[in-house]
């Protein structure tokens, strides 16, 4: 089946990724660990733009950027340099942003996403290095602001701006693209996607193959989809009423879920880009082979391997390879128990419980999940008890074995179940008669009695089978 894209939707994304796994900023030695710090405590003359200060490029930042470029299947430029993008706004105290212009570090790549009709290729136009601006906080609401507070801790952090081709054909594909990008970057170990400001997106959207509108200020995956759904609807309605879509920039208001037209911004030529005289050119193409060797197995390759090596279905393999930490966790578990059991317990059960509590895989140990799986597959506890143990470990702490004892979760012996079945049948002749008379529901009642007698430690499915067998004797 080929997706027809009936509304002629084209979406391209510009994603800003903060390389926050670097220890220092892009052009100065200020620490990148500012997230829980007082304002303006991680700044120096360089990132504060004080007169006479000079930037010196972080070697590791260039390495990371090349790594990202290679992971996105880009070619790496032979020689490049930085440019000044001039604009007057207090988020950058120098009155320009140091960025790349005509020679981005990486270009012409692609990634594969799960599209509307299966695998879908999204082209990567370019990826370039630039500095992050400061954080501005408006006092009061944006239209009735009393002033703006400026914290330069973020100023000068390393960003990679990744620009895609307008290859996404629905908001869902755009979200999938963002998820895939996040997954790849997570594998590369260049950023922590959970930190505030780690990933931000601007979107270019057009309908009926028309002119594009840029939507800015999208800061979450959910926000992206909502912003795009709204903007596509707005454009379609506008055209239906006889209007025309003009190229413009709109601002996504997350609280209200709408996009708002912004005043005409400076045109590109108004940024008066020119080569940054304080930084010398880069000639780093010879780094590429060495960096390529350090590239880890990426999500697509890992997914294929999981399917082949562990005999997993695609859904499990995909769920287990989105985050590198989860993938590594799974492999450790799969080394100790049957990989298919490992997949079910890690992907379907543990991840569900973790997501529900907004916890990462770090909140659980390999040892504990192995213990749970062994208890269940060794027929010592029921699956339901296994889930209960996971919940207890997450909510109250403790080790699986202790929880089994404390809560008395060990499955009762078969003969105890058998006795309970006999008793339940003997004590409830009405229910038995009802069942034999065709009332299916009465069976549940008898099984319930068995569970009561065994204090819930019998396996409900087994109990049901035993009751049935007894009644049909």
């Amino acid at each position, binding site marked *: 089946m080929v997706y027809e894209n009936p509304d002629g939707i084209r979406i391209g994304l510009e994603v800003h990724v903060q390389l926050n796994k670097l220890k220092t900023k892009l052009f100065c*030695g200020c620490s990148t660990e500012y997230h829980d710090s007082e304002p303006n405590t991680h700044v120096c003359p360089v990132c504060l733009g004080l007169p006479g200060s000079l930037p010196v490029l972080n070697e590791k930042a260039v390495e990371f950027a090349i790594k990202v470029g290679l992971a996105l299947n880009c070619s790496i430029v032979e020689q490049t340099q930085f440019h000044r993008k001039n604009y007057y706004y207090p988020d950058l105290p120098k009155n320009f942003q140091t960025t790349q212009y005509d020679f981005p570090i990486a270009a012409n790549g692609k990634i594969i996403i799960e599209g509307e009709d299966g695998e879908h290729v999204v082209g990567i136009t370019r990826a370039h290095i630039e500095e992050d601006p400061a954080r501005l906080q408006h006092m009061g609401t944006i239209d009735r602001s009393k002033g703006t507070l400026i914290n330069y801790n973020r100023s000068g952090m390393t960003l990679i701006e990744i620009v895609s081709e307008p290859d996404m054909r629905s908001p869902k594909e755009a979200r999938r693209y963002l998820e895939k990008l996040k997954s790849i970057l997570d594998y590369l170990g260049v950023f922590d996607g959970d930190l505030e400001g780690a990933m931000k997106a601007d979107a270019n959207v057009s309908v009926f193959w028309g002119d594009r509108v840029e939507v800015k200020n999208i800061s979450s995956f959910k926000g992206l989809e909502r912003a795009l759904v709204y903007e596509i609807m707005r454009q379609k309605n506008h055209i239906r009423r006889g209007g025309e879509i003009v190229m413009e920039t709109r601002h996504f208001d997350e609280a209200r879920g709408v996009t708002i037209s912004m005043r005409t911004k400076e045109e590109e030529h108004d940024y008066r880009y020119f080569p940054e005289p304080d930084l010398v050119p880069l*000639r780093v193409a010879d780094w590429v082979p060495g960096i390529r060797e350090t590239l880890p197995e990426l999500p697509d390759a890992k997914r294929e391997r999981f399917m082949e090596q562990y005999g997993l279905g695609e859904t499990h393999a995909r769920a287990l390879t989105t985050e590198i930490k989860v993938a590594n966790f799974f492999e450790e578990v799969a080394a100790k128990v049957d990989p298919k059991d490992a997949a079910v317990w890690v992907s379907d059960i543990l991840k569900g419980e973790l997501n529900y509590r907004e916890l990462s895989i770090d909140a659980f140990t390999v040892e504990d999940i192995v213990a749970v799986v062994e208890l269940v597959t060794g027929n010592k506890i029921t699956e339901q008890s296994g889930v209960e143990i996971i919940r207890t470990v997450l909510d109250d702490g403790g080790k699986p074995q202790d929880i089994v004892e404390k809560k008395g979760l060990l499955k009762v012996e078969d003969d105890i179940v058998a006795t309970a079945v006999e008793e339940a049948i003997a004590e409830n002749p009405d229910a038995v008669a009802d069942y034999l008379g065709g009332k299916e529901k009465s069976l549940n009642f008898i099984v319930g009695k068995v569970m009561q007698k065994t204090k819930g430690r019998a396996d409900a499915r087994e109990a049901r089978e035993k009751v049935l067998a007894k009644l049909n004797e």
Partner: protein
Amino acid sequence: MITKEEVEHVGWLARIEIDAKESDAYAEKLNSVLDYFGQLDEVDTEGVKPTYHVADIVNVFRKDEVTESMPQEDVLANTEHKQEGNFKAPKIM
């Protein structure tokens, strides 16, 4: 030729207020600067690569090692407009 309007536009980009009288004067001055630089166009640069730096050096880096940042009070020392450790600017948008 730089027009009066262009002078005003460039002034706006730099957030500098330029009134009508000034813009005429600036247009004239800027045009004479441009004319002067225009002489460079007379040089034959056929086959010459663009020069961004006079020194032919590339790849100047520093290691990814943390150096000390400034104390917050020094960072804010040059402004009267501050609040809770932030710089305070007039409302923006």
